[in-house]
């Protein structure tokens, strides 16, 4: 079914947004900083993708799940949303894990001193 992959990516992105909103992890913590990180991150990985496609390493397989809209040869529209999800997931994870790690390490340090 065309569009199924895009739908899956959008659902995942909504999930990331809800987690970000609920726990103030990334955009809800520092919106402009998060925007800058996301724009540079997505651009960085798009360059990687375009080079991989240009070298013939990976390409769109024989499927019926993509919308068919292409950003570049063998770079589907969906790739943009995949890279957004990769960046958002990475930063939400970091935002969630960091305070937990910080609390534990500081407590351990206090206990030693």
């Amino acid at each position, binding site marked *: 079914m065309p569009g199924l*992959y895009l739908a899956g990516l959008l659902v995942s992105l909504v999930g990331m947004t809800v987690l970000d909103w609920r726990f103030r992890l990334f955009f809800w913590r520092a919106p402009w900083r998060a925007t800058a990180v996301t724009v540079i991150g997505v651009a960085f990985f798009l360059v990687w993708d375009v080079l991989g496609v240009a070298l013939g390493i990976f390409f769109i397989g024989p499927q019926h799940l993509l919308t068919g809209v292409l950003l570049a040869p063998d770079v589907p529209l969906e790739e943009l949303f995949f890279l957004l999800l990769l*960046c958002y997931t990475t930063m939400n994870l970091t935002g969630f894990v960091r305070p937990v790690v910080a609390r534990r390490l500081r407590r351990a340090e206090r206990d030693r001193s």
Partner: protein
Amino acid sequence: VTGSGAYALLALPFFGAVAVVAIAAGIVAARRARTRGRARTGRRIALVTGLVAGVVLLAMTIVFDNVIVSLRIVAYDPALITGAKIGAIPVEDLAYAIAAIVLLPSLWVLFDRTVPRQPADARPAPDPTTAPPEDS
């Protein structure tokens, strides 16, 4: 770039760029922390956070990529990958997640323009549900 190492070699310049950004972030973070005298703890927090979040991200990547490769949304030229696989995916696929977990938090540090009014390390860890936005 041709041969079975092509996909792996493609990652090298990107890893190089990521390393440069990470080193810059490390220097900036250390300089900020030194003014508060807590550089060592800050570095350990960043490294442990990266390791923990990195392991989770790699696990999620392995699941996600296996799904999209199995559904043939993406395919690979078998002549240009090493052939080492995790399920259906070439191990080289993990390079994206590894780059992301180092690059993006490093950029986050570099784009920090907030000037702490008090030593940030002295504050209790903020409750994520009530932490105020850092941008203005």
